C-alpha cells in the first residue's frame, strides 16, 4: 500500500482469475449454485460463497472471481445450460483503494454518488473513471476494489494520484 493522500492508500492487486458468465437466468442460477450461493445476487450487488464471489454487472451477466476449487466446479455446473463463459483474467488489472478519503478520490473522477447510503458496501457497478471504463466494488465502508482494462491501468492510477494531490493540497493549513 502506498499512501497517496492523508487517509487514503492505493495498492495494485495481485493477478487473479476472472470469468464472465453471460446467459439467461438458468445459466446465472447454475453459476451461482456452483459457487455455493442460493441465487445470483441482484443487479449491482456482490454475493460471496465458498467457491468465490459473483458480481452482478448486468441483468444477464456475472463476473466471477472464483477460488481454485470454485473454478473447477464452474465448467461442470454450466455444461447442461446454454451460456457463454469467458476468462478475462489478463484483460483487467485491479486496484485496492483504502482509507477515509477513498470515496473522495473516486468522486473526483466519476459522477456517481459514493455516499454509503447510495453506494452501500457490497455494491458493484461498471462506470467511467475519468475517460476509462472501470468497475468499482465497495468491499467495505472505506475500501474499494477498482478494476480497469490493463492498458488503462497506468492512466487511471495517475488520475487517482492527481486527485489525491488536490485533496492533500486542500488539507494544507497555511
Amino acid at each position: 500500500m502506498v499512501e497517496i493522500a492523508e487517509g487514503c492508500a492505493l495498492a495494485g492487486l495481485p493477478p487473479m482469475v476472472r470469468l464472465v458468465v453471460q446467459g439467461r437466468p438458468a445459466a446465472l442460477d447454475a453459476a451461482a449454485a456452483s459457487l455455493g450461493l442460493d441465487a445470483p445476487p441482484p443487479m449491482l450487488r456482490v454475493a460471496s460463497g465458498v467457491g468465490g464471489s459473483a458480481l452482478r454487472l448486468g441483468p444477464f451477466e456475472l463476473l466471477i472471481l472464483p477460488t481454485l476449487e470454485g473454478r473447477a466446479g464452474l465448467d461442470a455446473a454450466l455444461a447442461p445450460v446454454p451460456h457463454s463463459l469467458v476468462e478475462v483474467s489478463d484483460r483487467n488489472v485491479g486496484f485496492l483503494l483504502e482509507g477515509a478519503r477513498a470515496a473522495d478520490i473516486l468522486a473526483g473522477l466519476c459522477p456517481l454518488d459514493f455516499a454509503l447510503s447510495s453506494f452501500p458496501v457490497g455494491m458493484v457497478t461498471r462506470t467511467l473513471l475519468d475517460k476509462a471504463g472501470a468497475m468499482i466494488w465497495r468491499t467495505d465502508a472505506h475500501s474499494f476494489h477498482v478494476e480497469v482494462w490493463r492498458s488503462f491501468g497506468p492512466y487511471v492510477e495517475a488520475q487517482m494520484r492527481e486527485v489525491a494531490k488536490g485533496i492533500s493540497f486542500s488539507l494544507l493549513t497555511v
Partner: protein
Amino acid sequence: MLLIDCPYCGPRAEIEFAYGGEAHIARPAADVSEVEWSAFLYLRDNTKGVLAERWRHSHGCGRFFNALRDTRTDQFHAFYEIGTPRPDMGGAV
C-alpha cells in the same frame, strides 16, 4: 448533462451511455424492393416533439433500452425495456 434512468441500473450520467437512434424500426423481410430497403436503412422521421429512441448503457450494464424524449426540451418522459411497446403517454405530452 442529461440524467438517464437505465431500467436496469437506475439514474446515471449521460457520459455512460451511447445513443442508438430512433426506436421501433422493424427490419423488413429480405425480399423487399431496394426502395423499401433504403427507407429502412436511411429514412427517419426527424421528430420535433416526443421521440422514442434507443440508448445503450455502454459503460454500465451494456444493455440497450428505449426512452421517450422530447427533442425540443430534452426532457425524458419514460424509459422502458427493448421489446416492450411504446408507453402510452395519454394526453400528458
